[in-house]
């Protein structure tokens, strides 16, 4: 019998069968190139830029290693931006975790069939529409002549709203130009990123662990504290990484809704654009990376990933 000459595809698959390492290499080259060159590479370029400085008279970049630009960050005007952004990110993350947990718990423990589909739809639906549309919609909702003021008036609670707006720092002329407004919009926009990982973590907690805890004498509150929360913690941390870092880096929401004071993202945008101060923009961009690194390190030390 005459041997059939194998085609190129067959010879290629034979080669991969004999050398599984070659297949792995072929599969990994595109993502490695992407991650290695485009992502890590640009991060490294960013890091290098932050160690240069700008000549204050000529406005030209001085390509010599210096920590002068980082020292700039500590100037009160710049440090306020960092503090403001970090506090906002922390507040948004905390509120998102508190609101997301009961929703995620309901979805993981009780929702079945249609209710579960409805849950996913309800959580994901806002993600299908444009982020800008949502933010502008919120600006209208929160505006002085907006629907919220109207509704609050309608139930005769304007005094309460005015009292809130009269609060120092977080208050303002209306919700749409106050930190409260910025906070609400951040919370709304990032909430799905907290709900989904928490729900996934809760889904993996076997129901009989809760029964075992109850059987051993624990009240529901004790079961929550000693069994459910520790086992959901990796999900909460995963969600908080999203909400925290997305808030740290965002430059559009605080520009549309809120006081005119800058957040880190806006500062980066301003410095690399009109001001042409690339080194300071780079130094600002490094700040969220460092904060996230510290946050993850602390979470790990607190044992947040023990149940993983």
């Amino acid at each position, binding site marked *: 019998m005459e041997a059939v000459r194998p085609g190129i595809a067959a010879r290629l698959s034979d080669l991969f069968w004999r050398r599984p390492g070659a297949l792995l290499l072929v599969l990994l080259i595109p993502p490695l190139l992407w991650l290695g060159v485009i992502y890590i590479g640009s991060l490294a370029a960013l890091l290098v830029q932050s160690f240069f400085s700008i000549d204050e008279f000529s406005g030209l970049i001085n390509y010599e290693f210096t920590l002068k630009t980082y020292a700039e960050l500590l100037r009160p005007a710049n440090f306020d931006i960092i503090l403001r952004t970090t506090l906002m990110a922390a507040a948004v993350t905390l509120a998102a975790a508190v609101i997301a947990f009961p929703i995620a718990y309901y979805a993981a423990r009780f929702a079945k069939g249609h209710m579960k589909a409805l849950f996913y739809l309800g959580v994901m639906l806002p993600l299908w529409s444009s982020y800008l549309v949502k933010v502008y919609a919120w600006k209208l909702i929160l505006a002085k002549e907006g629907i919220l003021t109207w509704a609050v008036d309608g139930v005769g609670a304007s005094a309460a709203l005015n009292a809130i707006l009269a609060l120092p720092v977080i208050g303002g002329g209306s919700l749409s130009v106050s930190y409260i407004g910025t906070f609400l919009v951040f919370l709304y926009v990032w909430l799905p990123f907290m709900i989904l990982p928490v729900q996934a973590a809760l889904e993996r907690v076997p129901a*009989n662990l809760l*029964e*075992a805890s109850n*059987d*051993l004498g624990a009240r529901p509150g004790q079961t929550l504290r000693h069994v459910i929360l520790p086992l959901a913690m990796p999900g909460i941390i995963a969600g908080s990484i999203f909400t925290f870092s997305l808030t740290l880096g965002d430059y559009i929401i605080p520009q549309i809704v809120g006081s005119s004071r800058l957040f880190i993202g806006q500062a980066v945008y301003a410095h690399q654009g009109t001001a042409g101060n690339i080194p300071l923009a780079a130094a600002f961009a490094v700040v969220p990376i460092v904060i996230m690194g510290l946050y993850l390190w602390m979470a790990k030390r607190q044992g947040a990933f023990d149940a993983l």
Partner: protein
Amino acid sequence: MSYAVEFDHVSRHFGTVRAVDNVSIAIEEGGFFAMLGPSGSGKTTCLRLISGFERPTAGHVRIFGETSEDLPPNRRPVNTVFQDYALFPHLSVRDNVAYGLMVQGIDKRTRHARAEEMLALVKLDSYGDRKPAQLSGGQRQRVALARALVNHPRVLLLDEPLGALDLKLREAMQDELKALQRQLGITFVFVTHDQGEALSMADRVAVFNDGRIVQEGSPEDIYQRPRTRFVADFVGSANVLSPALSRRAGGPEAWHSLRAEAMEAIEGGSGRLSGTVTTVRYLGAVKRVTVDVGGDELTVAIPAGQDAPAEGATVGLNWTATAMHRMEGA
């Protein structure tokens, strides 16, 4: 007489499914009680009615004479060893065992000392620092046992506790559980679908089918005198003779059970029934010989030392009249 657990006409329905249907039981204090039945027969639901994870649709569950329907699981003097152990994966073995003490607010030093005592009881001292994931199936089973015993429950519930273990370990654990029950003197209520396990460990057995108890008695009762065809079939020790076959064998026209080891098969001889040997299976201590007696198959157990007829041989089957046990049902 005081009972540890009493079921007074208890039903538990899930929609139209009658998981437990009008069951009454009285479990004596200090006994080893087995609930035996196929899956879906209601035995696990009965256990959950005692632990408090289910509430009866009708009837009352009394624990030490006290009606318990309104008592949540955390306030009942019973603890459970769960089917797949349900150990807390994020806690060490020691903290797992000490959990029941921790939620009572007992200080760390005392509860760890008590946990170590319990671990010693189940022969797992020196394993306290490990995580459950680092233990074998048999060791996890022991941790679950120690954890359930740390609160000194008056009744220990065991839900198929040996189901996930291999045969050899299962036999060893049967002996240990039995010894532990005697040593502690508390009531054990044990759910299983394995008749061998139920008969060898318990001193009372209730056989469940379709949400009802079909027979309750000592292991010997269940084994020697099955009340219905279902029990005889499920316990699996006996041949079931239809009314017609019983008549042909010279007995009254009713359902009978006839244990395999009470029969003898004489090659070429005559007997109450005669037939052809279809298979001979060697099982170590006995040979199981299946004989076709004109459409019905009967099984005869022949002790290892004796000669068994060959496959295809014609045999006569004989037994003493008292070996035939009359059962209920038409």
